[in-house]
């Protein structure tokens, strides 16, 4: 595959990087990245991955654009309110970089469809807003040996980690269940619509997910696998804490008890007062 002059110019500032070059740009063009959610985290991830020239972006979302999304979901605009998020996402991405192939999936991931949907992608970025999806995605990525870059935001704080328990070249590294064995019971944590968040935080974390993805594609730098990055926008502080593999993990441990995908109940309800 050769680049056109237009492509060389578009990507020149990263081809100039010694760690990228023409060979790296080809890897980026050949990469297939799957984004879970075209929301706060998926928006900046998608835009920067697309601008970097990632050849194929798969995006799943079952929602339509709502006015209240626009404070942080920068793939969408006032013009696309009430449009399907994946349609709106594709429109924005192709306007910015027509080189990128966008595969759209409308609907929700579940134990029946997830393996088939993500099996052809190299890297998965989780930007979902609920625990059942996070556990489902983690388990599916574990079974398929896919590298998962997980981001989450809440109020003024964001978290980021890379999960690739199948890759032990630098020693054992955890899966999501090593950090959080089970989803919290529905109603215990505010999720989805109830949680407040500083919109710009979605940008910070989503862009760092994209940065991790590009490093994985290029095979450069030090991966965040085995570490959790915690960002506090109020203090403007980053903490990087070690997260070891749980030797008794029910999924990735030596004596697993989870052998198939599970559907947990999705709940967006806050605990009822009293």
């Amino acid at each position: 595959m050769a680049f056109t002059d237009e492509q060389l110019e578009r990507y020149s500032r990263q081809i100039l990087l010694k760690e990228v070059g023409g060979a790296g740009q080809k890897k980026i063009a050949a990469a297939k990245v799957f984004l879970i959610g075209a929301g706060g985290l998926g928006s900046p991830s998608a835009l920067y991955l697309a601008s970097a020239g990632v050849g194929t972006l798969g995006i799943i979302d079952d929602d339509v654009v709502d006015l209240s999304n626009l404070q942080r979901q920068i793939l969408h605009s006032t013009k696309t309110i009430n449009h399907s998020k994946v349609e709106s996402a594709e429109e924005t991405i192709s306007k910015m970089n027509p080189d990128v192939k966008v595969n759209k999936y409308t609907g929700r991931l579940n134990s029946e469809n997830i393996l088939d949907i993500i099996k052809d992608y190299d890297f998965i970025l989780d930007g979902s807003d609920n625990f059942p999806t996070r556990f489902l995605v983690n388990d599916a990525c574990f079974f398929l040996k896919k590298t998962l870059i997980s981001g989450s935001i809440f109020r003024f704080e964001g978290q980021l980690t890379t999960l690739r328990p199948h890759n032990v070249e630098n020693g054992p590294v955890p899966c999501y269940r090593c950090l959080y064995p089970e989803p919290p019971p529905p109603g215990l944590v505010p999720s989805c619509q109830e949680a407040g968040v500083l919109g710009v935080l979605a940008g910070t974390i989503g862009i760092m997910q994209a940065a991790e993805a590009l490093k994985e594609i290029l095979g450069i730098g030090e991966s965040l696998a085995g570490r959790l990055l915690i960002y506090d926008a109020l203090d403007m502080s980053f903490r990087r804490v070690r997260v070891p593999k749980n030797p008794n993990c029910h999924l990735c441990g030596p004596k697993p008890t989870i052998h198939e995908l599970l559907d947990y109940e999705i709940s967006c309800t806050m605990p009822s007062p009293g």
Partner: protein
Amino acid sequence: MSEDAKADVKLDLSGVMCPMNFVKTKLQLEEMDEGQILEVIIDEGEPVRNVPRSVKAEGHKVLELEEVPDGHYRLVIEKADV
């Protein structure tokens, strides 16, 4: 080195601005083997100040840089193992 150094590949990058002239030089070098010689023609001014420096920064060897007619420069590079 003689006037007509035996270049394995020649690239005419006259009229090509920074940084595209270096991008094209770099991509050509990526395709070549260690020890092979690349000759590029670049413009005077910014290109002749920047391209040789960037080539050296990537670890390659600049064998020759000489002015040729029409305000161009001939840059001869030996590809290093990088």
